[in-house]
Each structure stands twice: as structure tokens, then as C-alpha cells.
């Protein structure tokens, strides 16, 4: 099965699958970061420009710092996210799933120079397009990975029905499908909902379906409710 996740086994024996981010979302994050650094440089210029040569020196220093260390500082201190990455919802981690550290972050950001060659990140793009896990050269040298950040999910919406216990033990995937079905009925057409529920129709309460008391879809929704544990 083709997928865009990378399995990382954490030392505690748990496997996490992390969704790797490809060039499109990363470029957007980069663009935002670039705009932010320009803004920062602009602000620095505004602040220092009235200070004569001292100001000029400060401007040059701040350009240097912003250019090279803006991403590094954010990645190290802000959980692997620059502001642009935060907006797009991606983060940088080490290949083994551990948080990014100083040396990795500095390496990957310094090697932007190599990615930049020969013109505006062409090497970087090529590398991201054709490598597993969508890495650019800096990521290879630093051993880092850009992934979509896992969000802490909120409590799911309530279903105003009683739960209904399935008689057959269901695998995780099957449970997931039934719960997903219940959650997504609102975004599907009626006929589609019925069609989907129809696949499981023969295993539901036929009588009620015939009586019209409870359609298969409603029954499945109730099973979903039960599965969620809010019976």
C-alpha cells in the first residue's frame, strides 16, 4: 500500500506512523518564513537606520543572524517549528523521531546553500521530488525529517442515539470505519449513505429495516456510538 507515512519505533516499543510532508506544503512554509524574515530585516532596518554607521553595522549583523539563525532558533526552541511551519502545520524531527537538536538544525539550515544551487533551490526541489520521505539535501546531511504535526484531537461530536453493541468482535480497522461512517454521514449525500450502509445491511437487524423503524444507516450509527464507548 502506497502511503506517505514513515514508521518510527520509539524506544518504548510503540510504533508511530508519522505523515511526512512533501515539497508543496514545505515550500509554502518556507515562503511564509521568508516573508517573516524579510519583515524582520525591514524592522531591523527601520530601527537602526537612524543610528549612522553603528546602525549600519547592527543592520548587517541582524541580517546575518536572521538569514542564518532564524530557522535554527525556532526549530530548536519551538518544538521543531518555524512560524511558517506552524502555520502550515508541519514540524522538523530527527529521522528516529527524536526532537531536533542544535547540530541537526544548524546542518540542515546551513546546507540550504547547497539546496539553493544552481538557482533558487532547484537542487533542493529535485531532491525532495525524488527521494523517499521527501528530503532535501540538508535533510540528508542532518538526518532530519519534516512531518505533518499530529494534532491533539478534540472530543468528537455527540450522536443523539442509543448505543448498540455489535455481536461480532470487530477489528480496529472495522471499528474505525463504522465510527468514521457515523461521523461523516453529514458530509455525504443520502443515497451515498444508504449505499454504504447497504453493504452491511444483511448483517443488521432485518426486521427493523423492513418495518422502516430503523434503517441500516441508523443502526450503524448506533453501533458507532457504542464503539466510542458512550453507550
Amino acid at each position, binding site marked *: 500500500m502506497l502511503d506517505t507515512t514513515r514508521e518510527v*519505533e*520509539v*524506544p*518504548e*516499543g510503540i510504533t508511530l506512523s508519522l505523515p511526512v510532508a512533501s515539497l508543496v506544503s514545505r515550500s509554502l512554509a518556507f515562503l511564509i518564513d521568508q516573508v517573516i524574515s524579510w519583515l524582520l530585516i525591514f524592522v531591523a532596518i527601520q530601527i537602526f537606520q537612524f543610528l549612522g554607521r553603528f546602525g549600519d553595522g547592527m543592520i548587517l549583523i541582524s541580517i546575518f543572524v536572521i538569514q542564518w539563525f532564524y530557522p535554527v532558533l525556532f526549530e530548536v526552541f519551538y518544538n521543531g517549528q518555524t512560524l511558517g511551519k506552524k502555520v502550515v502545520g508541519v514540524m522538523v524531527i530527527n529521522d*528516529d523521531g527524536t526532537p531536533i537538536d542544535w547540530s541537526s538544525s544548524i546542518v540542515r539550515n546551513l546546507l540550504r546553500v547547497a539546496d539553493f544551487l544552481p538557482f533558487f533551490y532547484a537542487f533542493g526541489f529535485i531532491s525532495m521530488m525524488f527521494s523517499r520521505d521527501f528530503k532535501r539535501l540538508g535533510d540528508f546531511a542532518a538526518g532530519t525529517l519534516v512531518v505533518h504535526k499530529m494534532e491533539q484531537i478534540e472530543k468528537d461530536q455527540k450522536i443523539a442515539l442509543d448505543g448498540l453493541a455489535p455481536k461480532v468482535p470487530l477489528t480496529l480497522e472495522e471499528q474505525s470505519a463504522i465510527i468514521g461512517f457515523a461521523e461523516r454521514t453529514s458530509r455525504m449525500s443520502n443515497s451515498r449513505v444508504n449505499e454504504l450502509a447497504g453493504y452491511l445491511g444483511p448483517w443488521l437487524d432485518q426486521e427493523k429495516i423492513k418495518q422502516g423503524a430503523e434503517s441500516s444507516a441508523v443502526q450503524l450509527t448506533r453501533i458507532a456510538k457504542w464503539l466510542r464507548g458512550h453507550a
Partner: protein
Amino acid sequence: MSDLTFDNNDESNNVETAKAENTGMNLQQGTELIKTLSENINKTLIGQSEIVEMALTCLLAGGHLLIEGVPGLGKTLLVRSIAKSFAGEFSRIQFTPDLMPSDVTGHAMFDPKSEKFRIRKGPAFTNLLLADEINRAPAKTQSALLEVMQEKKITIEGKSQPVSSPFMVLATQNPLEQEGTYPLPEAELDRFLMNVLIDYPAIEDEVALVKTITTGEIDDSILMRELTAVTDPDSIIALQNLASSIMVDDALFDYAVRIVAATREWSGVQMGASPRASIALIRAARALALVRGSEFVTPDEIKAVALPVMRHRIVLSAELEIEGIGVSQVIADILAQVAAPRD
């Protein structure tokens, strides 16, 4: 250290002996047994009597030992000697970057004959486990070992099985943080009761060692063969029980807590020892008192175990480390300044 214990040994006869619950062993028997044990072990390990004392203390306190030191200073010999002395099982795992957790704990194997899964026990099912160069294995393998150390049982295929008793892990760590080592997370180091440095023996001891080996004896294995089992695992468990019944005055609990608290406020210490360190101090001091044949703990025992117990639990700030002031120096300073109970 040994010169500080002169008054304990000669008087242990007329003391009313502390009796451990559920064991038939009294202090006198215990002390004698320990004496035999350590003499036995010191036969093979010449010039490392302090390490032997600490290793025994750790064993009797039911803790695990982290040993640091350059290779070739008889760490394996130490573990084997201890194991052989009480007729315990011994196994050694060399940690390497490709070591898998199941190489430590064992795994389930399908047996085509019986068509059942058989549990194949890993080297961790033993009494004494020497984990060599623990920081060379990736974190997940270390983690498997740390799990065993804490739980004293191993879960394979959903079945958890206790490891042998007594159970002690002696892990060695490379002193150099080289390329390709995975340092143990700070929070995990707590799992080791003590951390001792094994160093080159003093010159005269080394001479003795060389003499023993060159005159007639050929190598370690012969030294080992000379060793005889002087006791059995059950007696070790009895000794552990005895150690936990050694008397500790309240003032000493207070003393231990004050020492640990001082590490947290000491300038130059970036991260002090956790409150659990004081519990470890008392545990280790009890066992040391027993090893020294005393029925009660005095501040001296606490002081003696303070360095090994706290060495791996505190992190120094940059300045001190650069100045070459090591953890041992800092702990010595702390011990000198925390008032000993003396009322």
C-alpha cells in the same frame, strides 16, 4: 574507608543481633557470610576491594550498578566472581548498535512440532546480568533493559515472567561519549542505585596481581576455577532481607534528605538529585552497614555511599566541568558542608 571501620568488627560479638524477619539468619551469621564472600571474590580481583565492597553493597541493597571505566579492568571478572561465589547464574550481553530488545529479553518462537509458540528466554533471565557498554545500543534496546530492571519481570507475548531472584544488573558505560553512543536519558539513570568508577589498581596491587598471574597461574580462567561457591542464592535473598532490617536513626533520614537537597541548591550544579536519591542513599547505607558488619547505620555509611549513589544523578554546570571539578569533587564539598548529625 577500611580504616574507619575498625571499631565495628571487634565489637560485633557482644551486640544483640538484629534478626531479619522470615529468615533464619542473624547479623553475626550474615557478617561472616559476607566476609567469606568478599574474601572469595577478592581472591580473583586484586586491588579492587572498594569496588567489590560497593558491588556487594549494591547486591544486598537489591539495586543495580552502573560501572564506568576503561575496558580491561576486570568488570566481567567481577561479575563472574560474584555470581560464582553464590552459585548464581550469570550472563553477559555486549551491547552493540544492532542489538535488538528481544536479544535482551527473549522472544516467542513457533515450534512446528507442537504447533505452539515457545518462549525463548533471553539472557536477562538470570541472577547477575552484565550489560557491557550499555550506551552503544540504541535507545529502544536500553529501554528494554531498563524495563526489566524496574519491573524485575519480562513480558513476552503478553505473558509476564519474573526474572530469577536475586536479580542485579551491572551495566558498564563507555567513559568517552564517542560517535555512535546513545546516552541514557537523564530521567532513566535513576534506575541505577549506584554508579562506580573502576580505575587502575594501585601499583602495589598491580604488582601482586601480576605476581599471582605469572607465578604458576596463567590466566583469568584459572583464577576463576579456584573460586568456589561459598553460599547460595537463597542466602543472598536472606542477606537482602537482613540489610533492609538494619537500624537507621531518624537523624540519618534527615541527614540523607539534607544532602540530597543540598545538591539542588549547590551553585555549579545544573540539575540536582531527585528526592528518590535520598531513599537510595538510605538503602545503600543499610547494605553497606551490613557489609561492614554493623547492625546500625551511622553517618559514615551514608557518606561512603553518597558518591556512588549520587554521581549519576546530578548534572554539573559548564563552569565546574571546565575547571576540571568533577562530580566527585562537588559531592565531597557538599558532604563536607552539610552538617553531620551529632547531637
